């Protein structure tokens, strides 16, 4: 399903493309350029982003033993939003090592938030998990208030640019962003498979995990920092795409069970395919207008969230 989504999605859009259009290689025809320079990079970026968010959601749900945990909940998204808002407010428009100012600034905002959070949790090592979760919620509100201050002080144009960014979006030209996000996906996958047994143990509770031989505090810190790093970069490239990290692991768990080595593989393929399909819908359903992909994922995610809360 995942491979089919990646293969078929670039042909679908405001202008349907045929194989002949695409194979008119040389980039001379409009169809080939749309395919190779716009749609394929976009589909690949969506796939890497969806797979990374799916894996990160899976890890967060095990890390906090909380079925409603998702990778952007601990201030990462609002930290990134603050970074983006600051960049817009300052009018920065430069490129740094191939990263746009907006992407670099939102990554710095997200990761600064993560490090501050880890320091706060480290002050209470006896109840690090709970402190991390609650401090994360507090950081979320704090950074959201900073974003609102910048929005209030900025121009209408700045406010609209920030609003547009917070809705998430995968508009790219060329393969640059997808190639930069690929190592992030590889890191998330490596961490997931290497820690699959630890994640299984974490689901059984800290007491059981330690008694089976897990270095709990170290494993938690490594997982939290690695996941947050991956999420921060995903958010920097695609904006805070909501609900993917929450929905994907739950749907996969219904199919493959709770064992994390299976769940990680399922989350990669389903997460990637899900965001590719949502992005294809976002640029096709209201064509020629495009909806931000975050709207589509939230539109599907909110009813799912309710179902999760209310199911027996």
């Amino acid at each position, binding site marked *: 399903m995942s491979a089919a989504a990646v293969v078929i999605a670039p042909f679908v859009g405001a202008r349907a493309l045929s194989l002949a259009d695409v194979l008119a290689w040389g980039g001379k025809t409009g169809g080939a350029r749309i395919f190779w320079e716009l749609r394929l990079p976009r589909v690949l970026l969506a796939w890497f982003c969806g797979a990374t968010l799916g894996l990160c959601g899976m890890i967060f749900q095990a890390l906090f033993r909380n079925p409603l945990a998702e990778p952007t909940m601990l201030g990462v998204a609002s930290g990134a939003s603050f970074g983006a808002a600051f960049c817009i407010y300052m009018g920065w428009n430069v490129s740094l090592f191939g990263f746009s100012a907006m992407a670099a600034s939102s990554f710095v905002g997200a990761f600064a938030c993560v490090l501050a959070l880890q320091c706060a949790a480290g002050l209470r090592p*006896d109840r690090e998990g709970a402190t991390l979760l609650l401090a994360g919620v507090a950081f979320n509100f704090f950074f959201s208030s900073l974003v609102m201050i910048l929005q209030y002080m900025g121009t209408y144009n700045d406010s609209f640019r920030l609003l547009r960014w917070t809705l998430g979006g995968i508009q790219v030209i060329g393969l640059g962003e997808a190639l930069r996000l690929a190592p992030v996906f590889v890191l998330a996958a490596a961490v997931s*498979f*290497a*820690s699959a*047994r630890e994640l*299984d*143990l974490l*689901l*059984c*509770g*800290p*007491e*059981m995990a*330690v*008694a*089976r*031989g*897990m*270095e709990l505090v170290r494993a938690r810190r490594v997982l939290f920092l690695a996941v947050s790093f991956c999420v921060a970069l995903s958010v920097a490239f695609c904006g805070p795409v909501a609900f993917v990290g929450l929905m994907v692991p739950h749907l996969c*768990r219904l199919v493959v*069970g*709770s*064992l994390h080595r299976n769940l990680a593989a399922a989350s990669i393929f389903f997460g990637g395919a899900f965001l590719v399909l949502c992005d294809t819908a976002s640029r096709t359903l209201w064509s020629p207008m495009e909806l931000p992909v975050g709207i589509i994922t939230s539109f599907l995610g909110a009813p799912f969230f309710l179902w999760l809360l209310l199911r027996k």
Partner: protein
Amino acid sequence: MLEVEGLCLSIGGREIVKDVSFRVERGEFLAVVGPNGAGKSSLLKCLNRVHPRWKGEVRLNSLPARRLSQKALARQMSYVPQSAGDIAGFTVRQFVEQGRYPWKGAFEAESAEDARIVEEALRLAKAEDLSGRFVESLSGGERQKVLIATALAQDAPLLLLDEPTAYLDYRSQAEVLELIRSIHGAEAPGGSAGRRTVLAVTHDLNFALQAAGRLIVLSEGRAVWTGKPGELVEPGLLERLFRTDFLRFEDAGSDVPFVVPAEFRNTKASGLRPGPAGDAVPCTPK
């Protein structure tokens, strides 16, 4: 096998375990008994570092336990918690396989040897029939068997049991008692000759009296008495330790009594003679 010297634990400024010292010999079954809040479970959790911030000295096979990594420690001692908590989503087989964790590297797959040890653990714990069921669908007694099977899959020579009969009905208590006796009687893993070493903490006096070879009584965090089960019949000792009166029932052919809190007795309905607090009541149940 295990030496504990001057073990102290404080949580939130309150002393839970106070200067506790004892030894467990290889192949021994030692039970730590005491009332609720005596610090029994905390003592056990210090040994396997579920509580990491204790003071004192713990040695395993003459080596300081602090020098061992958590995985190395788990290869020496396995642990059966009071309950399986809210574990969900794993089949019994998948859950028992988690016991192999301290023996595996990050990307190392399960080997045929792991599968054999898991099968053996399920067989020893009499949980083979449960292996395809989900942990959340099990009864209390079945869960206890599965927790024991997971600890056995850890293949460690020392088995720590935290209140193994708590929350169980009488039939399940009897099954678990029999199971633990047979596990203690079985050969220790790792090629070491002799029986498995067991350290159990419990407030179930009859479980401790019937299963253990030696007892330590913990009261308000301190070890206040140690001896063999038969020596616990000393008049007034149990009453002082547990602050309640007991009736004792002798078992023909054994020096180990059964004990029942005197408050349990309905004097109108039973034919038992009420004895003065602390006195043994010679009575053989019919």
